[in-house]
């Protein structure tokens, strides 16, 4: 297990390093001068030159890369253009809002997806099974920002059941929870489909397994077989899926934050683009990428700990 964990961790470090390199290439090799972008069209040449020197853009490219790379690994992501605050602080300040939103999305997708998948697997081939199948595909297909806007239109504007904007009063968990319902639904609805399909497929596989047949032969109650002996195993692939899922929910969260005017990393980056706050954009991209890679790592390690076959094939 330790061997596997070390190898997998090494891979994660390599991926993050390469992702930093790619991001650096994107920033500096794609046409467009970051200094002009940051200062806008009305900046004088002298102002651009001053910022270029401040950002280190006058140095040779490998020196720039080395600064960017070592800085990024030690948590120095540069400074915000306007206030001069460290970018990492700015990003970490907004991160909890986004993480709460994603946790809400996961709650929706697990709470709806696992029972639906189970139900479809038990009633295999029935109308209910087909219906769950079609609905799963449908919610996966429709983009989350369309779901966000229609949810806003239906539940907040027309029915006025739930609040439309903001994250709720600070220090009032009840209010914050009410503000979380719609945005997290928009983030998690697509994943209800993925999880339902995944749970259904692995349930069908597990229900054929010999230990389930043995349990039946012993005359255990059907409910106990389904939920205690089959579901606990069938749920394992869902963990890996969620590792990937959180990364994609991060994308949906950007839209949900903008549509519902919630604070968070997505809103931060969006506003940073509008105000040409360039270091914040790169900083936020790096932080979210690292989180994504870490989550995949954790998911793989959990599955590796539970399933020896994964460890040996790596």
């Amino acid at each position, binding site marked *: 297990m330790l061997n596997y964990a070390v190898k997998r961790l090494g*891979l994660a470090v*390599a*991926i*993050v390093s*390469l*992702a930093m*390199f*790619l*991001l650096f290439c*994107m*920033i500096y090799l*794609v*046409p*467009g001068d*970051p200094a002009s*972008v940051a200062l806008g069209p009305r900046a004088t040449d002298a102002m651009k030159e001053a910022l270029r020197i401040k950002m280190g853009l006058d140095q040779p490219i490998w020196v720039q890369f080395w600064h960017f790379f070592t800085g990024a690994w030690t948590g120095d992501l540069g400074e915000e253009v306007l206030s001069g605050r460290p970018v990492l602080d700015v990003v970490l300040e907004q991160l909890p809002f986004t993480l709460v939103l994603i946790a809400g999305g996961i709650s929706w997708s697990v709470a709806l997806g696992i029972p639906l998948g189970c139900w479809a697997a038990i009633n295999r081939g029935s109308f209910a099974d087909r219906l769950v199948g*079609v609905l799963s*595909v*449908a919610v*996966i*297909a*429709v*983009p989350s*920002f*369309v779901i966000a*806007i*229609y949810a*806003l*239109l239906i539940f907040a*504007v*027309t029915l006025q059941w739930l609040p439309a904007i903001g994250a709720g009063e600070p220090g009032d968990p009840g209010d914050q929870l009410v503000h979380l319902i719609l945005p997290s639904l928009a983030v998690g609805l697509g994943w209800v489909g993925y999880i339902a*399909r995944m749970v259904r*497929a692995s349930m069908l596989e597990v229900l054929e397994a010999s230990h389930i047949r043995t349990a039946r032969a012993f005359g255990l109650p059907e409910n106990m077989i389904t939920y205690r002996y089959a579901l606990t195993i069938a749920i394992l692939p869902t963990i890996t899926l969620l590792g990937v899922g959180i*990364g*994609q929910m*991060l*994308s949906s969260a*950007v*839209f949900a934050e*903008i*549509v519902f005017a919630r604070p968070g990393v*997505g809103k931060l*980056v*969006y506003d940073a*683009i509008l105000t*040409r706050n*360039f270091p914040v*954009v*790169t900083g*936020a*991209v790096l932080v*979210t*990428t690292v989180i*994504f*890679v870490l989550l*995949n790592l954790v998911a793989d390690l959990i599955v590796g700990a539970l399933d020896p076959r994964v460890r040996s094939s790596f």
Partner: protein
Amino acid sequence: MSEAASNPPAATARSSELWRSLRRLLREPLGLFGLGLVLLVIFGAIFADFLTQWDPTRINPRDRFLGPSGEHLMGTDQLGRDLFSRVLHGGRIALYVALVSTAVSLAIGIVLGLIAGYGPRWLDNLMILLFDAMKSFPTVMLALALVTIMGPSLTAVMVVVVLVNVPGYARIVRTQTIAIKSSEFVTAAQSMGASTTRILGVHIMPNVIGPLVILASMDIPVVIAIEAGMSFLGLGVRPPTPSWGSILNDGFAQIRETPWIAIAGGVPIIITTLGFTFLGETLRDVFDPRLKGR
């Protein structure tokens, strides 16, 4: 003598197999429904100029915020432009982006995948690492970062789509290439002195392209969502060009007063993504049951 005539039984078997698959597709209600939706969108995009008399970009201040009526089927937006016309023309943008960027992603993905699968081991490992690193950026974050540098444009949208799609396609081609490269007909070609280009192009590529095209067709709704999403954020298609995403953005700004604008922008996105997804799922099950569940 043509190749088909020299080998008639195989050719007939192949075309009848295709016919059987198509007939099975038409028997699946969900596939048929998806095909119907897709054809509806394509029809609307092609014949946009005949289906409505309104110019999608003509500003008409006196007709601002008109609700749906016989004259304006979906109403008008904040500049008095006819929404039905904008929705139909927006379909052209969506389909154009989907087709061009999927084709480019496929081409790049195939080349990179063949190199990784057939090349030396160290290159393979390096490229796998590169694909994993590219995939580790959350899509929207990648899009936002890229637009910051390139500025909002249709090209930026397509670059994002290619960067998102290529790693997945290349990985599939690589796996298939590795599986095929040690098979007998490839060894035979090698021993007859065929060049690497010939082996890759003539012997390996035709065997990997089928499943890849099906998977790529299933990615079309994702591509359409990326275009609409970036245009919704104001980072894609530039105004006044109509795009479903920018209509949705116009509607979002006025969602309390004039909800029909947001509805007009969202419905075509839902129809198109559902249509392509239902069609793609059915196509995959009919043509290649091995891919089921991917």
